[in-house]
């Protein structure tokens, strides 16, 4: 009986992943029906290119949600990182990229201090930090930046270049980060502790874990990934304005939830989030193709998230 029980549980879990893939394929099929011939290599390439920044942004979000938190500053951080990178571009590409990434790590570090050391609710902490980041960025743009910042060529290539005609350059970066995350969550001590802290932080304390260290490192990692996403996004759209990534905040949470990571922490995976990000991007493509007004888009977005979250609770018994 024991092996059967395990295989049944595994099957359901695998099936939930398959269901997501099926949903993805169904959406693509829908596009093909609406516009025969629309789904081709070029379309796939486009989808991947647009999914990459969201996927990387949602990577950081996944890490935080696994610990039972949420990071509402990811979009602000991505925007700030891209804007600072672009404004520093005249002083050298390397310096500008490092500056952008540092912004991300620094904000994540402060989030981690707030949540890990001072026990501020993650929602409050990151919401507040998001405001601080956006406000500071506005001041910075008025005080220190004279010309409209331009995106360096390297970043432009990273965000919108392709290899062999169809494979987006950003896909390589995404795949690299994705592989690191999936393996890291499964088989490093840090990955284990993220799940453990998300499941029961008191229990980890009794086992000798200093939770603040885990949270601090985790929010910093999330900040870093948000900054990377910001840079990639600025390359994709070849611009870095003050509201670059704002629209990606809720999708970053949605991708995590659709991907099956419990919003209460303690379980989930990045592979789910990847599919979640792809589903959202394809869905967006469908809605754009149908010429659906923005308001309706938002309704559908919200509805899909609610339906999937409910389905997880029912089918998988997430608490």
């Amino acid at each position, binding site marked *: *009986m*024991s*092996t*059967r*029980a*395990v295989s*049944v*549980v595994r099957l359901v879990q695998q099936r939930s992943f398959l269901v997501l893939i099926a949903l993805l394929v169904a959406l693509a099929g829908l596009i093909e029906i609406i516009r025969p011939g629309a789904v081709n290599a070029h379309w796939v390439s486009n989808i991947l290119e647009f999914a990459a920044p969201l996927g990387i942004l949602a990577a950081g979000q996944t890490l935080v949600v696994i610990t039972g938190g949420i990071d509402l500053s990811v979009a602000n951080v991505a925007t700030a990182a891209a804007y600072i990178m672009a404004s520093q571009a005249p002083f050298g590409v390397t310096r500008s990229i490092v500056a952008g990434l540092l912004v991300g790590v620094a904000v994540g570090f402060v989030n981690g201090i707030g949540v890990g050391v001072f026990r501020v609710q993650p929602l409050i902490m990151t919401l507040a930090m998001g405001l601080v980041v956006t406000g500071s960025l506005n001041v910075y743009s008025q005080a220190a930046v004279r010309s409209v910042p331009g995106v360096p060529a390297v970043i432009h290539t990273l965000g919108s270049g392709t290899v062999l005609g169809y494979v987006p350059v950003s896909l390589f970066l995404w795949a690299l980060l994705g592989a690191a995350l999936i393996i890291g969550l499964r*088989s*490093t*001590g*840090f990955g*284990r*502790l993220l*799940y*453990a802290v998300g*499941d*029961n932080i*008191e*229990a*980890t*304390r*009794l*086992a*000798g*874990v*200093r939770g603040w*260290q885990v949270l601090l*490192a985790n929010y910093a990692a999330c900040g870093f990934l948000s900054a990377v996403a910001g840079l990639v996004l600025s390359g994709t759209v070849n611009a870095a304005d003050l509201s670059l990534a704002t629209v990606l905040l809720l999708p970053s949470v949605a991708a995590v939830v659709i991907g099956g990571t*419990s919003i209460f922490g*303690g*379980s989930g995976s990045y592979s789910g989030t990847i599919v979640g990000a792809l589903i959202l991007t394809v869905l967006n493509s469908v809605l754009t193709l149908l010429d659906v007004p923005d308001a309706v888009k938002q309704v559908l977005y919200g509805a899909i998230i609610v339906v999937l979250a409910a389905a997880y609770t029912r089918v998988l018994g997430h*608490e």
Partner: protein
Amino acid sequence: MLEASGLAKNFGPVVALRSADLRVRGGEIHALMGANGAGKSTLVKILTGALTADGGAISLGGRPRSFRSTSEARKAGLICVYQDPSLLPDLTVLQNLKLMATPISRFRHYLAELGLDGFDLQTMPRELPRPTLSLLDLARALAIEPQLLLLDEITASLPADLTVRVFNVARQLRAEGRSVIFISHRLAEVAALCDRATVLRDGRTVGVVEPAQGGEERIVKLMLGPVADEVAAEAASPSAPATGGVAVEVRNLKAGTLNGVSFTLRFGEVLGVAALEGQGQEELFDCLAGVRRPESGQIVVGDKGSSFRHPADAIRAGLVLIPADRLQALLRQRPVRENIALPLVSRISRWGPINLRREKRSVEKAVKRLQIDTRVQSEVRRLSGGNQQKVGIARWLVGGFKTLLCFDPTRGIDIGTKRQIYGLIKELAANGSAVLLFTSELPEIQLACSRVIVLFGGALVDEMPAAEADEKALLRAAHGLPSEADPDAQEGA
């Protein structure tokens, strides 16, 4: 009065109840016994409408019934009081009562019966000790005047004097022709109180016994099944007195209720701590485990004084805690393997890649040694209480320790698992570890300990070798009374 037959319940692939039969007469106190995971809780939940059965039938007073909710069962006169208090902590007791439509005057009447007359209903449950909360729950259940009252391990968190009051109320119900289903792991309680006992094993009813007439041994046999003799052989004599060096020396430790306690714990011994509820034992264990900082006094490990600011400091010094509430220490959603391997990754220097093969090997070894009944991959929340506690212990076999601090490790655990755990504790001590063991069940002290210290009012009032520490002697000492043999012994304490 109540008749249930062939009740079955599955949770996905896990079979909780195969075929349970239960017959309770009017005016009877009926015990429901079984090892952890035997299906007692599931059966209780089905009877009270918290779960619906997949198969079988229930009839009440001759009429077939099935309850779809606890409120339906309540209307039919069935109510259960659970081990864990159910009052909402942030509403006053009165608000709680109103929320659940409890008749206040009946509630007050039963409170008085339970010895809580003059209780202030404006109190917040948050501020009340656990035993009082249990009594409030009981009074609330009694206030609806149930025909059948189910008591699910209610005595597990009650000190002896309160247990007596609960018994009196149960007997009173019986005299009025009503019925009580009593669930407890304590055989002595069952023998003293119950008319008949239904024994469950592996989700099946395996026998109905009259516990009073020497039925205790039969109950144990039925509960354990074919392995009974094997386990019984293992439950052995107290462990040998210690000869090893000093593991921990506690000097004049003060924290909360704990008011200046000194003792020495040696390698190779199991030192028992006997105390009634709230005599400072929680504080003692918390200080030793680094969960709480003492107000004054010293904990000396090895030859240097230690000040633990975090459990990590205590663990580094070799002191690890097994708490009574096992879920406090476990990751419910995570697999057994990750739970057991947690100490291996706790330090920042272990955040890197895990050697999965080595980890698997050491986890499997611990699982085997403790006979944890599970697939190593399954979630901890699906295990029975006894197996969960074993997981909590297995963690430290893998993580390594010198001194094991067991705070009531067998609370709410069946007798078979208890014996296994005590067997293991003795074995660990024999292999050179030091063990400090508090148990709320005094007769168990002799099962495992070589020496006992008794706490009363935050002070160490007595110390005796295990051989003298029978239940009577411990009870006297735990109540702050001098021992019978030597009435002058405590004059100086």
